[in-house]
């Protein structure tokens, strides 16, 4: 996404001054010195985003509940990142410190604050006021949501890659239709296991009642995640490496990106996600991701899988998988079997790898049986 023009980034609309927020003195939220003799003096000590790292400071006087919840929002805290990376980390204190430095420089530059969802573009998308400083209750999909979630979610959802997501392309739904404030503002929990462990995170079943008359739904029940049949191939990234260049600027190198769709086993079957079969996505971490900061920082890499539960945002009613039973049944290509995982990653991914003898067998003689039995309503 091209950055905003520099002057647009700080341009305040005159009608903003007529809004409730516009009646508050600038310095009350942003600090600085309005009596300053010149620009440098006036801006001394000011903060562009007064809603981070302490949402209370600027928001709590009026939005007490939201400001308190923000501290439990994964957008705000990225709280699941550090424990997950630490799980793979060397136990040595010095190495852990080096790893944390790398994470602070790279991973934690990507948070979103109240202001970065309601007023400006996120800092990681070079910031800037998107609507003359007006506060929009509903975030803007392009300038805010996909400014960060762009290369995978945004492109897949809007159809920049693949056919797009039917919720967007056909029903004109935006991110907020499935991800309401109640999910994004934080759920009050501080011990999330992962990003799916947020109260109110969307489920297909929230809107779609599985129709038992649809043959495929009746047969597969809740054994298969909806995504397995209704997603298109999605982006998978390999071998992300981070570091600082000669000018001290953070860089991110992710040399390989491949599009595919891979069915794996659900390593965390629970009442919320009971499916045995799920889609898995290759996440970019490798044992050497942080090696700029030190050697052997992720010596316990195998403690967590790097093929992860995936929820691609490119849903279609009809996909190549669900046109014919045998597009999946007996089709080893679609399953994450051991031979598709590098030997050094196999131990880490054992919980999601599909043993070949578990791949559902080919369906034989579909045509003859269907002629005798009354045809069930097809999903297509």
């Amino acid at each position, binding site marked *: 996404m091209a950055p905003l023009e520099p*002057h647009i980034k700080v341009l305040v609309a005159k009608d903003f*001054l007529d809004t409730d927020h516009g009646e508050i003195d600038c310095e009350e939220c942003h600090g600085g010195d309005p009596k300053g003799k010149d620009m440098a003096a006036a801006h001394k000590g000011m903060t562009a985003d007064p809603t981070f790292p302490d949402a209370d400071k600027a928001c709590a006087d009026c939005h007490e509940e939201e400001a308190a919840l923000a501290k439990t929002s994964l957008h705000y805290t990225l709280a699941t990142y550090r424990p997950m990376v630490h799980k793979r980390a060397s136990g040595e204190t010095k190495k852990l410190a080096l790893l944390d430095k790398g994470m602070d420089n790279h991973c934690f530059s990507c948070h979103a604050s109240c202001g970065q969802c309601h007023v400006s573009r996120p800092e990681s998308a070079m910031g800037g006021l998107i609507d003359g400083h007006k506060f929009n209750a509903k975030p803007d999909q392009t300038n805010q949501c996909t400014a960060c979630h762009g290369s995978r979610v945004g492109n897949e959802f809007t159809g920049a890659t693949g056919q797009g997501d039917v919720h967007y392309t056909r029903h004109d739904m935006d991110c907020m239709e499935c991800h309401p404030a109640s999910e994004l503002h934080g759920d009050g929990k501080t011990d999330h296991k992962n990003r799916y462990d947020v109260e109110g995170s969307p489920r297909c079943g929230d809107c779609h009642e599985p129709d038992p008359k649809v043959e495929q739904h009746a047969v597969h029940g809740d054994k298969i995640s909806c995504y397995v049949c209704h997603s298109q191939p999605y982006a998978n990234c390999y071998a992300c490496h981070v570091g600082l260049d000669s000018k001290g600027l953070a860089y991110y*190198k992710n040399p390989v990106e491949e599009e595919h769709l891979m069915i794996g086993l659900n390593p965390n079957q629970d009442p919320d996600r009971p499916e045995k079969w799920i889609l898995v996505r290759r996440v970019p971490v490798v044992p050497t991701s942080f090696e700029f900061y030190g050697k052997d920082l992720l010596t316990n890499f195998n403690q967590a899988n790097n093929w992860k539960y995936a929820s691609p945002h490119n849903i279609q009613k009809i996909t190549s998988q669900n046109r014919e039973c045998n597009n999946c049944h007996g089709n080893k290509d679609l399953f994450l079997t051991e031979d598709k995982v590098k030997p050094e990653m196999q131990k880490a991914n054992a919980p999601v790898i599909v043993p070949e003898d578990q791949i559902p067998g080919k369906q034989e003689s579909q045509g003859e049986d269907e002629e005798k039995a009354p045809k069930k309503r097809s999903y297509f």
Partner: protein
Amino acid sequence: MRWKLTFLMALLAVTVGTAAVQASQCVSCHTDAEQLKTITKTLPSPVASAETAGKG
């Protein structure tokens, strides 16, 4: 007494007036697109590392 009251009212007017001027110092610049354009041309552009490669 009347002089005291007049003095206090004048002081209040000056205080309110000063506050309004202070607020407008931020506002007058940040609502003026042309002025901002001129100023931002003189400021260094934010730079990102040229070594970043690939998608994430």
